[in-house]
């Protein structure tokens, strides 16, 4: 049963790694392009949030499954 905890922490940790790097690149690009063309700032922000939600998807699924494993499977 202890392996379940290691599995869950691997899932959450690696997902967080990917999300962190992805959001960082996305945010950096937003800042660059807003500095280049401030009048598009609002539109770019909307699209950034959209992309952030999409990036979040698979890591969140991983977190959901990991939580399920910890609290329901491993009691």
């Amino acid at each position, binding site marked *: 049963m202890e392996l379940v905890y290691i599995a869950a922490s691997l899932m959450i940790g690696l997902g967080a790694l990917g999300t962190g790097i992805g959001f960082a690149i996305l945010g950096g690009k937003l800042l660059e392009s807003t500095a280049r063309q401030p009048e598009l700032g609002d539109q770019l922000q909307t699209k950034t949030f*959209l992309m952030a*939600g999409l990036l979040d*998807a698979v890591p*969140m699924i991983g*977190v*959901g499954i990991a939580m*399920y494993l910890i609290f329901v499977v491993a*009691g």
Partner: protein
Amino acid sequence: MAAGSDNTAANYIQHHLQNLTFGHHPENGWSLAHGAEEAREMGFWAIHLDTMGWSIAMGVLFIWLFRKAGKMATTGVPGPLQNVVEMIIEFVELTVRGAFHGRNPVIAPLALTLFVWIFLMNLLKLVPVDYAPELFARLGIEYMKLVPTTDPNATLGMAIGVFGLIIYYSLKVKGVGGFAKELSLTPFNHWSLIPFNLVMEVIGLLVKPLSLGLRLFGNMFAGEVIFILIALLPFWVMWTLNVPWAIFHILVITLQAFIFTVLSVVYLSQAHEHH
């Protein structure tokens, strides 16, 4: 809490994560489940009554609110309800206009329904964790999981509905032959690579509803578990954690409803593409 269970943290969490399941138990007959194992033994055809009830309630609330705003609509100075409803409708219209490149009168109402319904169901998440289960426990109902979108049945159900629409419109706009040709000849336009194309395209097609449903479920379920975990802390610590998480969650709720809507519209737009 529930009669007869010991008040450990694990039991509290499991109690709050258990849906109100109604089905045919092999021993107890048609009844409500009294625990996770009983719910599992009821098999596939057991229904989560709380999910069904709250999702239908939110749907009725959405229809009633928007109908009331539509009937009371004036060209004079608008009231607050009309303002909010108009803002939402214009927002959805802007989104659909940007994302949908076909000609179909069903898409914009569908997008509006998805957005507002999912947003209302997600909004139930901000009700404090213990209120609904305690209230219903006093009425004699043992389990009550308030947010329908934390149930993968609800989110995958909606995603499969959208998937059905994708297949229907693909077949209607492209014809069965055109659809099959697109599936088998898309990345590589050569007859020898048809099996490869088919595998890639079918997997791509099946991933769409799966990712739609699971994305919403994962976000909401993880948020719910964290709310429950925060509820286990001593009361003087609870606020410092709960307030930022709830504020962040307001963003997540809206964002996830929006993403579900936009992705459904984009997939339906892809289904309407002619070459």
